[in-house]
């Protein structure tokens, strides 16, 4: 699972288009699965969900998948079982008789995802696959992406949603002005700090000073307590200390904003997403 991150205009979508042969590079070369990028043969092993997925909206979802399957070189016999299974996978079976022009944006995204997977590609390029989806749709996309990993496919995920990338990807690369300026293995990535948002009552103020002496910054506004720990290992002890100090703890939520921090550090504070 590979996450491709960068601010708007960094060249993420253009890079994918070059790898798939939609855009010709002005210089340099790229290979995909050992073959020159964009070659017809290698595209047989690749699936693609474009950022702004549009298709012949006069088709039903099953017709659309059959068309894409045929274009991907699949036989009608193979598609007979494959299409219903895919519709089921992306949750569109109840809508199979609708025309695509009646679909919501989220449903369009789901059918787009299904067409990218119709021929079981070895590499799946997903350009902003969760944009426009509600939380249930995002979860479904995450599950589909995980299923691809389980069957051994590589997913190349281009997304603005760092939280999605952090949950889903093993590796990430950061792109800035058309150049890869950093990469990270998220499995071995140790966050520098963990922020905790807690809601507490009856907290003795002295505990803040005690925590500060341990190197843990803490601030209290009303019932909202913000803490910054060094690692997740410190969290149980931190909670015990709060309770020992007489606090009633209503919530204690660690927020791993580490990838976002890394992103901001690499890209610079002033570059918008």
């Amino acid at each position: 699972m590979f996450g491709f991150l960068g601010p708007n205009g960094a060249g993420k979508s253009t890079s994918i288009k070059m790898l798939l042969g939609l855009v010709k590079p002005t210089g340099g070369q790229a290979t995909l699965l050992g073959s020159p990028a964009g070659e017809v043969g290698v595209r047989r092993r690749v699936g693609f969900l474009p950022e702004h997925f549009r298709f012949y909206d006069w088709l039903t979802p099953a017709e659309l998948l059959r068309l894409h399957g045929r274009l991907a070189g699949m036989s009608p016999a193979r598609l007979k079982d494959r299409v219903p299974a895919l519709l089921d996978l992306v949750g569109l079976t109840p809508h199979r008789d609708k025309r695509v022009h009646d679909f919501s944006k989220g449903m369009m995204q789901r059918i787009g995802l299904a067409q990218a997977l119709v021929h079981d590609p070895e590499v799946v390029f997903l350009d902003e696959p969760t944009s426009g989806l509600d939380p249930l749709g995002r979860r479904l996309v995450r599950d589909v992406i995980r299923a691809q990993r389980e069957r051994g496919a590589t997913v190349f995920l281009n997304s603005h949603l760092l939280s999605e990338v952090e949950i889903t990807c093993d590796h990430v690369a950061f792109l800035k002005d058309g150049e890869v300026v950093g990469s990270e293995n998220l499995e071995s990535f140790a966050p520098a700090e963990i922020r905790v948002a807690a809601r507490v009552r009856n907290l003795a103020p002295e505990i803040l000073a005690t925590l500060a002496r341990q190197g843990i910054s803490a601030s209290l506004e009303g019932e909202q307590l913000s803490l910054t720990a060094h690692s997740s290992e410190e969290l149980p002890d931190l909670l015990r200390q709060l309770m020992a100090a007489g606090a009633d703890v209503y919530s204690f939520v660690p927020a791993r904003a580490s990838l976002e921090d890394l992103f901001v550090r690499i890209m610079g504070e002033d570059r918008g997403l």
Partner: protein
Amino acid sequence: MGCWVMAGVTFREASRKKLLWTALLAGIGFLALFGIALHFQMQDLDRRAIAPFLRYQVLSAMLLIALYVVDLLAVVMTILTSVDTIPGEIASGTIHAIATKPMPRWQILIGKWLGFAVMIAGFVALTFGGTVVVAYGMCGVTPAHALRGGLLVFLECLLALTVTMMFGTWFSTLASGVIAIGLHGLAFMGGWLEQMSGFTSSARLIDLGIVTSLIMPSESIWRRAAFDMQTPLAGALPFSPFANVSIPSGTMIGYAAFYLLVALAVALYHFHERDL
């Protein structure tokens, strides 16, 4: 393989979007109108007791005018229906999920071209063939070399289709349509310039007409078809859309076919090379 899938989807799109049925209805409407007009004309000719020879000439001229309308209608239909197929899909991004499938880009363009060619063949067969059948059935008048004439009209439509698609690989839908219709208008004007030369036997007007036919040979194909289909008397008139003033030669038809192939090659090359 990709060619046939794309041809099929192009044909199905026209059918699903009711384009095919609208064209079919328009064709049937045209045939009905022609039949009614022919009926009235025959009644008037009968009332005036016109001599059979003259009666045949009048009805033949009417048939040729109807076929001229068929020709214009078919060319305009061709341009209007096909103008959005390439630039529209590029502008909307629809092409992205298609062009990344494992098939060379030329198959997308050729597939669409084939799909439209089949639809146009159907439209020409219905309107051109229908007009000939209606005329024969109602008054026994047939154009000379009707099949050759029909095939030439189809060739003219294929030329308009290819030129429209070629510009579609460069420009937006609107710009491509304006250029394609503008070029056909230029050819149309060139044809009339040659016909007008019948008044003054102006070699310069004929030369001007030939130059415009070289720029866009669509109208010269029609004029050749009209020459092949008309009666000798109609052709002898000095000023009509079908006058035998400057008849496009077989070489000009060959040039039109060559023009079509070059336009198709240019369209394929540019579509292959451009970014999507």
